[in-house]
């Protein structure tokens, strides 16, 4: 288990950095479908920001913000968003993952497609972020595995 290490510099710097890392992660996720980036990359950056939080403040202190319980929900939710968007397209009469058929109030099909891909990227981003943190926490808290469950 990672415990808190008293160092004012590390704490202050990470407190300043974390919001910026997260905003950058959101930027990467949002722009994935027409510039370099995407759900996976953005999700990893978002996950890294939380890992920094755990490293700087210890796993116990960060439990309030990110617990394994929440992460499990987030991981499956992200993947459900992905497969759910595909399923909605299927129910609206298109093929699976045919974004053009999504019931969105937009004027043209290319715009609907762009939104559809954005939805997929968000789902992937949430899933990847949750899994990255889960892997980190699982390795970091190996000895105390029993307590978390």
């Amino acid at each position, binding site marked *: 288990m990672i415990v808190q290490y008293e160092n004012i510099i590390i704490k202050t710097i990470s407190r300043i950095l974390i919001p910026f890392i997260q905003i950058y992660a959101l930027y990467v996720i949002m722009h994935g479908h027409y510039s370099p980036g995407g759900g996976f990359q953005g999700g990893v950056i978002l996950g890294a920001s939380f890992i920094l939080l755990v490293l700087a403040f210890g796993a116990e202190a960060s439990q309030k913000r990110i617990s394994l319980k929440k992460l*499990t929900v987030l991981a499956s939710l992200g993947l459900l968003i992905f497969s759910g968007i595909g399923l909605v397209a299927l129910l609206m009469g298109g093929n*699976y*993952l045919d974004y053009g058929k999504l019931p969105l109030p937009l004027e043209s099909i290319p715009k609907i497609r762009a939104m559809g891909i954005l939805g997929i990227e968000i789902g992937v981003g949430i899933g990847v972020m949750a899994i990255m943190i889960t892997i980190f926490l699982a390795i970091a808290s190996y000895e105390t595995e029993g307590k978390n*469950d």
Partner: protein
Amino acid sequence: MAEHFPILVVIIPIMASFIILLLWRTKHRYEWHITTAATFLSFLISLSLLNTVFLSGPIRYWLGGWEPPWGIEYVVDSFSGYVLVVVTLVSFVTSVFAAKSVKKEAGEGRTVSFFALYSLLAGGLYGIIVTGDLFNLYVFLEISSLAGYALVGVGKKKRAIVASYNYLILGTIGATLYLIGVGQLYIMTGTLNMADLSQKLPAIFESKVIIAAFALFIVGLSIKMALFPFHAWLPDAHGLAPSVISPILSACVIEVAAYAMMRVMFTVYTPAFVFKVVPAKEVFLLGGGVAMLVGSYLTLAQTDIKRMLAYSSVGQMGYIILGLSFANHTGLVGSIVHIFSHAILKASLFLVAGSLIYKTGITEISRLKGMGKKMPLSMATFTIGALGMIGIPLTTGFISEWKLALGALEAGKWFIVPVILLSALLNAVYFGRVIEIVWFKTDEEEGHGHKEIGKHEKTSIDEAPLSLVLPPFILVSLSIIFGIGAFIPVTLAEKAASMLLGMP
């Protein structure tokens, strides 16, 4: 809705897996119900798909509406429809069995993650079968394998973790070799779609890259299907996995790898390449024949019932590969029927071993004395399953071996027929030993046997619960039904073989 069946069969179990995880921390978990419902739905869908394919030809489904070769295409033809029905059937029946067994073996706290992984494994396997895209196949291969590695590690014995780790390393090597092969084909042709590749490849058959890619595919998938020289991971992984996972690994996972190999051989590379350009016939003849004999021989030495069944799978994979080496229709029919036959029989045998472990905790064959009296229905199921594996007439095991022998004669390889017979004989020896101990050895030596078997010795019949007895019984009955009504699997397999060999 029916036109979406090829994707639904894959996406239902995968989404079920996410839903199970989502409900983890809530009061209403229903993990087993969701898994069983998902696999059952997939089974019904696959039956409908096979029916459609049989009546009106292959179904092609474009993911996202993108036309192949640019988009990913799912194809259900007479071969994939056939294998899909077999795999969905076995995974459904096994998940029925899982209700009681998993609680006992994995522990209450781990059932949710177990069933989430189980659904994922099932979805991955269905995906490998329906996909018409080489890279998509790799993705599903990894989905199913990763779920499989984790599930092997759930096994009760400590060594299960080591087995899982070995399986992880070797499975990853196999998948990597496969991926390198995909990369080479992509560089040479610029496409990943199987149908498109089979159009573009004949022009560059002689290219060294194409031949190397073929070798990588064959070796990579041979590791995945545990063909003889690459079988080292299988006995540990299949023998030490939880009772519910062993049947899936032995009956579905390695069969699906065999399916993928046949797909690559006949759909991507055409029979013209496999039988004329490269010496695949000779390699498969040697590999299959040696796997049959060595696999069966190694099985003889096993004292643990699950390990014995696991080793037997090594030999049975040899049959499937042997059928490919004859380069004729009959041999291929034998291979395809054997996929069906081995899947249902091996699954039922492993399930009986599972209910044995559930009831008594015994895995050593020598301690099974008098079990025939205690668990008559389970042991009867085991006996019929064993007879099927040996290849006694009236079971599906006989049809496939008969077709293989006919194929060998047709190809002029008469010397293979004694090898098939010898392997069947070895099968008879190692299954016969178990049958003898179970039915004919009673606990004459009072005290000694009693102490070992357990406390509930006084009761004469002490059968496992119905939900554990029925699943293997259903599979064994199917083996007999289709062993007598042999025309059903044979007609389907003949259609699949004609399609693979490109015959009208």
